[in-house]
């Protein structure tokens, strides 16, 4: 059976964002986006009006929207099943609904996500999924389902011990189970063609986002950290095909800019940091955030799924091409820059961070640690010591639900003074 959303993924439409829903006049969101002249700014609208975007997508495609909590979620499979994967992000608004369900000692992202679920902010979701990561997210996933049930749910077991040769076969099997479950729910068969295509679209998105980051390597910076962050965050919210087209347009626009001389070149390191205002505040103090290691940043797109070629070969059984695609997806998530939770045994993160620092000529690093997060909490002192041994100054900012902007401003100012003193 075919699904309108799956067909929608196959449409070739330009300019993408002026497409109106069939038989209609176009949604509010679509019209708002279409009236914009600068593609770069449109990401900002989408991040701000994320719920409206998803609702519009549903109404114009008839497809299902699947929320997810952790970026180890293999979105390609959801996409191949004709659904829209949407990452649940923070609202950073005060609330009073979660404390009877989740301990206040849990990370603010999980509490914030659950609050929004219970408040009905994501009432348009048809499914809620997560990939195996931390106990906090499991609590959010469960309490959400318990008190604001979503029709479809699935927990993808993404092994934690990814250094083991045994992780990949297990993860491939978990992906196969996920694929089957999605097929049963959506009524759409995930074929090797549709999955191959989803991988292509996702890989293209990763390449484009990497191009955006490449633009921040030079001494003149054509875009701000906040603009780049919104592009990545929008990617976690939008149909990737739409995002790719908008991103291509945005890259052209950005490349035409003369660029500004970079300030103190910083890297930010952390987890889910969607508080773009914090990045703006840091840059307003004379710094330039040229690269990051965040799951709302580079960790999300840094590597591609590499599909062995040719996809089909003689003597292979039925279903083998699909398995090879699932295997490529599994390898991609195993190889991606790791979240500290999965950076076990020999640490890969340290080398990766040092490489980023050198590649982007980083002069200082700000760790944005989400309070109560154990894996990041364990890594932060190790990263600080490691980088400082390499003469890269660091600052650890501990963030909660909302940002203490005034305090942070003072601390960042002091840190920048220290960095400037070191580099002059």
């Amino acid at each position, binding site marked *: 059976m075919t699904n309108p959303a799956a067909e929608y993924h196959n449409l070739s439409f330009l300019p993408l964002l002026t497409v109106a829903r069939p038989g209609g006049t176009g949604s509010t969101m679509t019209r708002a986006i279409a009236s914009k002249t600068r593609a770069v700014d449109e990401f900002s609208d989408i991040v701000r009006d994320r719920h409206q975007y998803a609702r519009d997508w549903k109404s114009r495609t008839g497809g299902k929207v699947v929320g997810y909590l952790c970026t180890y979620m293999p979105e390609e499979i959801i996409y191949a099943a004709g659904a829209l994967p949407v990452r649940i992000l923070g609202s950073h608004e005060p609330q009073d609904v979660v404390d009877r369900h989740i301990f206040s000692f849990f990370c603010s992202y999980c509490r914030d996500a659950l609050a929004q679920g219970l408040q009905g902010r994501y009432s348009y979701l048809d499914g809620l999924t997560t990939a195996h990561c931390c106990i906090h997210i499991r609590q959010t996933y469960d309490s959400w389902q318990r008190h604001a049930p979503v029709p479809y749910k699935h*927990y993808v*077991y993404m*092994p934690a011990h990814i250094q083991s040769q045994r992780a990949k076969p*297990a993860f491939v099997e978990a992906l196969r189970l996920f694929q089957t479950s999605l097929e049963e729910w959506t009524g759409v068969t995930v074929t090797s063609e549709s999955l191959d295509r989803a991988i292509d679209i996702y890989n293209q998105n990763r390449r484009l986002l990497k191009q955006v980051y490449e633009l921040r390597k030079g001494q003149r910076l054509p875009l701000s950290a906040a603009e780049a962050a919104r592009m990545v965050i929008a990617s976690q919210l939008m149909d990737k095909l739409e995002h790719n087209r908008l991103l291509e347009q945005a890259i052209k626009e950005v490349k035409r800019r003369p660029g500004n001389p970079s300030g103190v070149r910083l890297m930010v390191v952390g987890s889910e940091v969607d508080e773009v205002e914090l990045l703006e505040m840091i840059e307003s103090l004379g710094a330039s955030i040229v690269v990051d290691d965040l799951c709302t940043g580079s960790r999300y797109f840094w590597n591609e799924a590499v599909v062995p070629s040719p996809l089909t070969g003689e003597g292979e059984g039925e279903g083998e091409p699909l398995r090879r695609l699932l295997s490529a997806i599994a390898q991609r998530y195993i190889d991606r820059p790791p979240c500290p939770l999965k950076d*076990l045994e020999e640490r890969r993160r340290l080398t990766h961070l040092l490489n980023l620092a050198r590649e982007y000529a980083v002069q200082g690093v700000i760790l944005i640690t989400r*309070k109560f997060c*154990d894996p990041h*909490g364990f890594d932060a*002192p190790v990263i*600080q010591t490691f980088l400082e041994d390499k003469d890269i100054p660091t600052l650890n900012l501990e963030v909660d639900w909302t940002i203490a902007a005034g305090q942070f401003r003072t601390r960042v100012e002091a840190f920048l003074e220290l960095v400037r003193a070191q580099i002059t």
Partner: protein
Amino acid sequence: MIAPQAYETRPLESWAKMKELKRKFFLHKWQCKERGGTIVFGGGLLNFCSLLSGLGDAVSFGEGIYFSTLMRNPDLAKRCFEAIESKGYGIDICSSSRVLMGSMLLGMHNKSPQGVVVQPDFWLDINNCESRSKCVQVFAEYYKIPFFTIEVPFAPTPESREMAVSLLANQIYDYIDWAQRTTGKTWDDEKFVEGVKNEWRSQTLGAKICMANQAVPAPLALKHIDNFLTFMHLIGRQNAETPDFLQTLLAEIEERVRNGIAGVPYETARLWHEGQVPWFFRPLVKYPEAYGASFIGSRFEFQAMGVYAPHEDGSWEAAMTPEERGIHLRSRDDAVRALAELYVIYSHNSSDRMIAPRVTEMVAAAKAWRLDGVVFHMDLGCKGIVPGHLEAKLALQKTGVPTFIYEGSNCDPRNLATFQVLDRMDSFLESLGLRKIEGNARETGVDKED
């Protein structure tokens, strides 16, 4: 006010035998190096003990030999916390990891109070907790010793069970190869098979002991179970002495049930403690005895004691060993599979990591153990055990079971306001219709004045 319900009680006859075995194995561990044996560190080795059996003479010191000493001395523990916090580790991360890492920095982690240093040959990280695995990384780097991680997966759906069992089994095979290379010892399959059989027996007997406490009056109090747990950890479930002792103990407990012998003199209210009892304040589990109430169980401790066959409705039943199910373990393959199934299918070690079963099980446990109240420890020091507490509390309240919450920490004394907790505990116990029984407070050995 409810009239105190008194029962006949008497000391456990097996107690002396347990102490004798503890003494014997304590020395056995400390003399390991002299015998040329292998010393392994790893917190998860409270389970998976049979992974040592194949190495012949090998013992585990858990995560550190000094842990219980630190926990009995809050001032010393605070020094450890301060030592690690001065290195940039936040107070919001796992408290037992912090105290252990702090003791490492102060040179107290692998050294006895008498100054004897225990150098582990390797660290085996049983990864069923994200915090612990990150902590092991720090230890292994500090000691510059090899370490191996075995992830204990769980099956979020029945369809994924085989995936999880295979993942665990395959990692065990890898560990066997790695352990041989690392220690230079040849893996002894015969001893490994024997170890797995013993581990299985220990786990099912432990579960039966906990199940026996469903009787009214309960033949044991939680404080007794606490001691049995320490015994199992010290001796190791893989050693035949553990299941042999537990078999004798179970027979004695069943005899107590038949004769209505209680664990404590009064059982006017049957209470349950959810979460870890603070290590530095163990007397807390005896506190309700002053009111004629008794803690008779804890999901955390019962799960640590044994393995259960899970039911859809959340109720528990002691699991059957492979032999009891007609499966005979003869080879390495048999043993690896049996060990993997033990921890993926039967142990709450893995199933408990989803939240929904915790809630269902808590409601079922309240019914099965005939509970009059449940106390939840909102543990600032352990994010692995706390999830589901609040949901379980809501679910219990719907069924009419009174609940009480206190905030504290299993390891960090700075996070437990003892007086406040005991004050509130008084109110909770009084709300159950209980009043202090004259003289009983002193007998329990714990009071707010302590």
